């Protein structure tokens, strides 16, 4: 995790949607955004960037404590608490003008 100017950091636990990959992040900078955290973790967790048909996947983080998806622009320090568990999951839409 890149160091932000502020030294405030919190530990987080981040997993993929299957629960197979669980990463402990000891020092997530509170000044960073959730989008920056997700972007960085995708590489570390080696999550697929494309779906089965080759279309690019985008991911979002779901905060288990509140049962909601976080916006990429939310600041870690504002939205998260120490020890929060996040699940990274792909954004998949279906059925819009379907079939």
């Amino acid at each position, binding site marked *: *995790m890149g160091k932000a100017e502020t030294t405030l950091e919190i530990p987080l*636990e981040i*997993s*993929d*949607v*299957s*629960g*197979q*990959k*669980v*990463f*402990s*992040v*000891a*020092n997530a900078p509170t000044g960073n955004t959730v989008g920056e955290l997700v972007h960085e973790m995708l590489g*570390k967790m080696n999550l697929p960037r494309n*779906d*089965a*048909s080759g279309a690019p996947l985008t991911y979002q983080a*779901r905060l*288990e404590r*509140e*049962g*909601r*998806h976080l916006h990429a622009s939310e600041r870690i320090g504002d939205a998260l608490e120490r020890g929060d*568990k996040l*699940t990274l*999951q*792909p954004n*998949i*839409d*279906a*059925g*819009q*003008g*379907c*079939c």
Partner: protein
Amino acid sequence: MRFASETAANAVRVLNKCSAELRPEGPWRWSCVVQNGARLAVAASLEDGFLQLAFRPETTRATAWGLERALKANNTLAGGVKLALDSGSRGLHLRAEIAVLEEQQLMDRFERALDGFHHGIGLLKSSDCEARAGHAAAQYAAGFSANLGELLRESPWGCAERGPNEFSVELDAKSAPPARIRMTESGLDMSVELVRANQAAEPCRQALAVFLLTVSSALRMARAWTATADGQESFGFQVSLPAAPDPEEVNHGLAALSVAWRMCAREASVLLHEAAARCYLAARDLSTTNTTNKPQSEEEN
């Protein structure tokens, strides 16, 4: 189209009417105590036009065997309520996602979900989920008057009639089989099968249960199911709707099954291989051999 403020207003009115206590917990989040028999503390939140309800018991640490049992009972819960597993824990919880419609419809869905929650708590407390399955959903049999075929044909989803009150619908997912839509005594049942196996090995069944219950917590409306018929075991996702659903609910439900297929079908196929299933159970710290393998984990500095 409902605007966010109208959606929120409907949701808050229903929560107020149906809750003995309602306390705001944050933006679009509430803690409510509902009463339908026993008092029950439920977390409610509003996101993307869905009212999300969740009940997390304080102490549940399921075993692989228990999760397999839970999966078998999952599609018996009323109101589309489902058992789900957080990806970072071994504790089952109950949840439901309800599309926010008109106030009266929302209240009806909310009350059905409460029945599902109460039944689900019984399942969580029971050591044998199967023994207590099946009573709650059936009471919603009455009252279907809508024409299911008409409802589906007016939707943007391609459908075909397969029998009396039974249809198949093409999902928005490549290589997915058609979803099965049928009217049952508990309401409208929409389901898609992910995998089928002849006598799947125990680790495969348990790994599929863990995986599908985990993904259920990330999917709206769709809940995992398994069934055995003619010596074959099927695993998939189901959406349970009232007997006279709103067209918008049908649309959301079919979209949910499409997303479920796209998220899980390949992975579910892999888990039919016993070696892969054992690896997955070990990664989730749920090995059938009681080893204490920890999830793949890294400490970052």
